[in-house]
């Protein structure tokens, strides 16, 4: 599974430019689903048809993981060929300074800053710029609207893995692996790889309207409280996939929450409960689609979210796959 994770995290796919990620997932899902389509906004929807099972009521279940990652877009090219930029999603100046970004065609950019008024002053984004090493404006190939993402390879640290864009390629990898391991299911399952989560859960909103599920599970990352002097939070790396109770945007359906917890206990899988004070996931948009959908989230504990080096625990990832396979194999009566 590490191979899938490496391939997906290293792919280029800022919100609105998910093409490369989508094509890699499309290839990997081929043969693992009965039907694959892309909706008008660019969400990839892979459908796996139910195989009726005695005593189990078939449900329409949507699984969602987002393909997009945060990034930057060029907003102005100055006279000397330096590039001013705006953020795509929650890019923080703190994570940009000193890092490199890469454009879709492989062009590398360095993040520079204006001279600060005070020595240790931290710059806002409008005081920063990208330098692609062009000797003058004539030799510059970049233009307003070009998009770049963090440049950072995947690294296997053994038990722990680090990469850019675990948010939410790790969710995508988990969905692909679940489709691989799930031989049959009594439910109609839609594996939805969404677009534009980082700019406002946009793909989830439209795909949920199209899929019209009864039950939905988003798979995404959550922050942890297990690093030095972290914000008090009970989630830690390696303690199992986190079952969301609440985040900044939604309250998980209590029935979905219990369904996940009961299944994890039945299968003897480690798990933890999550209350995230800020941020949210695709499940927020899905929950209020049409007349309401029973929605919950399986979160992968992840340190340093929205930096070039996010970190997850490999057991948590594999246990999330096992939990999903378990959930999709039995009854889903919420």
């Amino acid at each position: 599974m590490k191979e899938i994770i490496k391939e997906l995290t290293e792919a280029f796919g800022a919100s609105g430019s998910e093409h490369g990620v989508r094509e890699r997932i499309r290839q990997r899902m081929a043969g693992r689903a009965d039907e694959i389509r892309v909706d008008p906004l660019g969400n990839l929807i892979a459908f796996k048809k139910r195989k009726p099972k005695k005593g189990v009521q078939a449900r329409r279940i949507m699984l969602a993981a987002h393909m997009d990652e945060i990034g930057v877009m060029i907003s102005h090219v100055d006279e000397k060929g330096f590039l001013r930029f705006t953020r795509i999603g929650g890019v923080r100046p703190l994570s940009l300074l000193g890092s490199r970004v890469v454009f879709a065609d492989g062009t590398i950019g360095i993040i520079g800053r204006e001279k600060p008024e005070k020595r240790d002053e931290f710059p806002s984004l409008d005081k920063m710029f990208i330098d692609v090493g062009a000797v003058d404006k004539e030799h510059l190939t970049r233009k307003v609207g070009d998009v770049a993402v963090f440049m950072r390879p995947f690294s296997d640290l053994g038990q722990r893995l680090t990469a850019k864009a675990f948010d939410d390629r790790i969710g995508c990898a988990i969905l692909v692996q679940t489709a691989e391991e799930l031989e049959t299911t009594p439910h109609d399952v839609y594996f939805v790889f969404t677009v534009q989560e980082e700019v406002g859960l946009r793909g989830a909103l439209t795909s949920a309207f199209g899929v019209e599920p009864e039950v939905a599970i988003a798979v995404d990352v959550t922050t942890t409280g297990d690093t030095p002097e972290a914000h008090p939070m009970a989630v830690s790396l390696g303690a199992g996939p986190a079952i969301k109770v609440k985040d900044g945007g939604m309250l998980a359906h209590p029935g979905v929450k219990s369904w996940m917890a009961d299944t994890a206990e039945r299968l003897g899988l480690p798990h933890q409960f999550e209350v995230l004070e800020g941020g949210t996931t695709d499940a927020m948009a899905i929950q209020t689609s049409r007349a309401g959908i029973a929605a919950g989230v399986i979160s992968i504990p992840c340190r340093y979210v929205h930096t070039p080096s996010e970190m997850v625990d490999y057991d948590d990832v594999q246990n999330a796959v096992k939990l999903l396979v378990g959930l999709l194999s039995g009854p889903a009566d919420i």
Partner: protein
Amino acid sequence: MLLRELSEASGVSGHEDAVRQLILDAIKDLVDEHRVDTLGNLIALKKGTGQARRKASSSRRKVMLAAHMDEIGLMIVHLEKEGSLRFRPVGGIDPRVLLAKKVLIGDDSVPGVIGVKPIHLLEPKAREQVIPVNEMSIDIGTSSKEEAERLVRLGDYAVFDATFGELGGELRTVKGKAFDDRAGCAVLIELLRDTYAFDLYAVFTVQEEVGLRGARVAAHAIAPDVAFVLEGTVCDDIPKKRDISPTTTLGGGPAITLMDRSVIADRRLVEILVNTAEKNDIPYQFKQPGLGGTDAGAIHLSREGVPSAVVSVPSRNIHSPACVLSLNDLENTVHLMHKTLARIHEVDLNW
């Protein structure tokens, strides 16, 4: 000029009636059907001619063009015992632009002025401070609450009292209020004079300035395959010390949105707009990414999603009583949209 009438009409978000009537009169003979929905959107259908040279499948496409009728303004929320009126902004108004402006209140256009304490009576420090809206009031000349009640009702809307005018020059500039988005309305009306192969839904929306409310329900009702939003947008091309983006430049041609806070424009639609402009020698520019939001924010998320783009007429001093735009830009926007719509069937909407 229709733009003059559009600009001078009152239509604060939630009370767009006068603008709607004006537009209805202008378009009713140009469209096959029209209706007003329950929020107040004017929805007109111009049926496609579906000529043989177009592919049958693409001529059946529904294309939605939207421009919003509403403008930012004020709402009267309290009548003071002394006869002055307290108000709150409707939509995003910079309080610094309000001082010493003339306003027109309610359907009877009662004149009033937003008063300000003379600078002579201020402490030096106070001269540098921005006065918040909740400390301002409108003087309509009345001296008691009872007298004020005869002219104004609680909840009445007020707009800037601003006349449209021509400034001239090479750019053929004009000034007036509410170019956001009466400029877009003017472009859309102009586009209805032509015929198209596909079914064109022209929507003059309400309540954009308070949260893209009209566009949302109109898009749900129409369920279009593609949408273009026509806007009047920010232009910040006054001289600055720093080499930073002017957002758009007056006279630089129609401004195409790549990404703003509400939408990432569909790249395929951006491509055909750019390609059409270049083929036909129509000037164009990209609006500075990352700023503002438009009806496209609501439309592209309707139902299963709608590929959407935004094309705008640059306007200086937007959201003020004295916006400035170039008629060249406005005409080029019509031209670009017209040429683009004529070949919209070339866009492959499959990913």
